[in-house]
């Protein structure tokens, strides 16, 4: 009897031990990692920050690369002596492309791990899911992706583009390049494309452009034959396709667009979710000659970018490319570091938040500044996909463009602004 039980315990122990070891071997992604910390002194002389991205599920494709660039920024800062003399310790959590999970993990990072800042989220859905937690805890999230705007939280720093730093200038540019051509709007069926297209329609209506159609594919959907027929029917003589499809749908869309004989000469497309990484996945063959609008491309010619690209390739491999959200993730860590140094503390979040305002950083895209509305002033660029899969920059602003989180074309938000430097103004106030 006793022997039997002992034996069984032994098996259980053995299997659990083996299982946990194997799990650790395969799934090193969800564990805590301290980058380049030369054995922190006793008493925990580190500053803990959280990294909250999808390492599994649909969004892992995009988000893992942002984790890479964020970790690179942390490593660079640690190698240079850390912040306030302390090493940064990054705690990675997997949001698993599932919005409730994002919220749980955000709570865990704040309450249990006691991090002083969280870097993460990609989709607007995940950001909207964690927003209540960050506001309730009065904590701090650094969000690295271009988004649809119409939001301005005290607890979020947005280091990607607002619509007026990506969508609006690209529409203006298209109207100048292709005067009189009609627009067809294609997007994935969720908040970002729908809000973006509302803005585009309002803008085109104000500026005398013409929208002849609009269609949405379920997120991740790949059956695009009906849409291609519709585009053809709506614009038989060619026109501009404004594309806010996300993820896998893009691959199907561009492959089949080419199959239907609708190339960029007659049907130029402008994408707001396709960057260097996606071009690799879709295939240069299908994208050559199409346009994308971002703040940053790997081909940007600045000294800071040469260093950035070289360091990234050294760390993660020659065949890797960098893109806009990765650069924004890299900027976020650096601006946070400057804010902490100016505030003289990492723990007093109010001080750090105030210190972050006005911080300027010599980013790969050019110099950027954190404005009072918690968004960055960023450079706007338009790139054309060239043979090697990188972008030829065909348009660039002369300097950073100030961010407008509340859209000035959409009637409901026209005339509103956001200012966190003045408690009387706050997240949404009417400009006089």
């Amino acid at each position, binding site marked *: 009897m006793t022997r039997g039980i002992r034996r069984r315990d032994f098996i259980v122990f053995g299997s659990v031990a083996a299982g946990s070891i194997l799990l650790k071997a395969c799934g090193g992604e969800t564990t805590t990692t301290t980058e380049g910390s030369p054995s922190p002194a006793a008493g925990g002389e580190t500053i803990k920050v959280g990294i909250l991205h999808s390492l599994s599920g649909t969004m892992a494709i995009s988000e893992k690369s942002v984790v890479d660039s964020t970790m690179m920024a942390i490593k660079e800062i640690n190698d240079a002596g850390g912040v306030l003399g302390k090493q940064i310790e990054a705690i990675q959590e997997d949001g698993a492309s599932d919005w409730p999970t994002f919220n749980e993990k955000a709570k865990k990072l704040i309450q249990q791990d006691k991090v002083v800042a969280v870097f993460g989220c990609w989709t607007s859905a995940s950001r909207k899911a964690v927003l209540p937690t960050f506001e309730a805890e009065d904590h701090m999230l650094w969000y690295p992706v271009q988004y649809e705007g119409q939001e301005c939280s005290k607890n979020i720093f947005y280091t990607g583009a607002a619509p007026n730093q990506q969508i609006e200038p690209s529409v203006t540019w298209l109207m100048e390049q292709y005067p009189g051509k009609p627009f067809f709007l294609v997007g994935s069926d969720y908040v970002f494309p729908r809000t973006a297209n509302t803005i585009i329609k309002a803008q085109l209506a104000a500026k005398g452009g013409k929208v002849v159609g609009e269609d949405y594919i379920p997120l991740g959907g790949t059956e695009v034959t009906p849409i291609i027929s519709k585009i053809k029917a709506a614009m038989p003589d060619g026109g501009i396709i404004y594309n806010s499809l996300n993820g896998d749908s893009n691959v199907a869309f561009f492959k089949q667009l080419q*199959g239907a004989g609708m190339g960029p000469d007659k049907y130029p497309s402008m994408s707001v979710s396709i960057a260097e990484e996606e071009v690799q*996945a879709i295939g240069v063959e299908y994208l050559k000659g199409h346009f994308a609008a971002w703040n940053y491309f790997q081909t940007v010619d600045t000294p800071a970018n040469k260093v950035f690209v070289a360091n990234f390739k050294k760390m993660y491999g020659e065949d890797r490319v960098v893109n806009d959200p990765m650069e924004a993730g890299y900027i976020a860590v650096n601006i946070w570091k400057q804010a902490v140094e100016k505030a003289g503390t990492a723990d007093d979040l109010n001080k750090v938040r105030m210190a972050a305002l006005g911080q300027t950083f010599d980013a790969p895209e050019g110099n950027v500044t954190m404005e009072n509305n918690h968004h960055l002033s960023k450079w706007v660029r338009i790139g054309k996909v060239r043979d090697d899969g990188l972008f030829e920059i065909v348009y660039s602003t002369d300097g950073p463009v100030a961010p407008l989180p509340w859209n000035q074309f959409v009637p409901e938000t026209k005339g509103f602004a956001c200012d966190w430097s003045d408690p009387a103004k706050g997240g949404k106030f009417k400009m006089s």
Partner: protein
Amino acid sequence: MTQLLEAVFGGLSIGSVLLLSALGLAIVFGLMGVINMAHGELMMLGAYTTFVTQNILKATPLAPAYIFLALIAAFLVTALVGLLLERTVVRFLYGRPLETLLATWGVSLILQQFVRSVSWQFVTGLGIFCLLYFGAQSLLAWKTDFDRVRNWFIGIMLPLSAIIALVVSNVLGNAYKLAFTKPWFGTQGVDVTAPQWLRGGLVIDTYQLPYTRLFIIVLTILCLIAVYWFLNQTAWGLRIRAVTQNRAMSACLGIPTQKVDAITFALGSGLAGIAGCAVALLGSVSSNTGQAYIVDTFMVVVVGGVGKLVGSIVAAGTIGTLSYVIGSNALSPLIGFNEQIKAVLEFFATASMAKVVVFALIIVFLQFRPAGLFPQKGRTVDA
């Protein structure tokens, strides 16, 4: 005229993709009553096989014809994986549909994560572990009375081989760095390009029929003919049909039903591989490729009725045509004489809405014909 052609071709091309991906599932479901949730992931493996074949043949003179070799490779690879799946998981769960559903769903998650994280380090670690553990097991089983020492064996060898595998793969990883630890495919999607002769399309008036779509339609027809021939003209096909109709009686008459199950599962999986190869030409190749198709695939099988090829064909054609006609607003010029009808039609004419409408129609249809278009007749279906 061109508009009619466009509509027919559009419906046909969506339907053929649906049919191709549903064919394997229909056969497996029809014969064994197994709902294989990993079917989509087998398609994904087929798509990745296409990617690998493309890269291997890139610099050789065979490059323009790589797609044909990829089809064969995809069939073989996924058929083998399917066989492995049947031998190690599914066969223990026959007659328990819910458990099979859960188990194959687990397998689908494992396969997805596998292609994301597989690297030389991963493969070496796994290889060493299997070699040590199963090697020692077979050695012991050969020498001694294995059952007596099984518990001790598991207790000692499992952690031991895991530790050795882990240490060796980590040491190698540290020695060779990125070249060794970098994932083969990674989380990023990979790119399968159609060969030059498959790009572009056949121009008819103002409309262009994409060659890739034509290729898939032809491929679907060939697969159907092959499957039909196999089931009706070969000895194993006959056995498969016999087991489908009455498993117990077939077993009594000396048909090795276990072998029949294994062959059918492998065949179904191989067809998933071919479907994966085809959809790689249309869409993306990433770890979630399969998920995009699995729901539609189940719809075809359910609407068509279990165990009848002709049901799947009609169902795929109907669903494909409906999706196309609704989504592309093709009805509007025909019956949109009234402004209000036109407005209603336009409201539903988006890709998202078309999907909703098609699902709704399927639900309504299943209220009247719960067993699908072509239910199997006879006393043996409720197995």
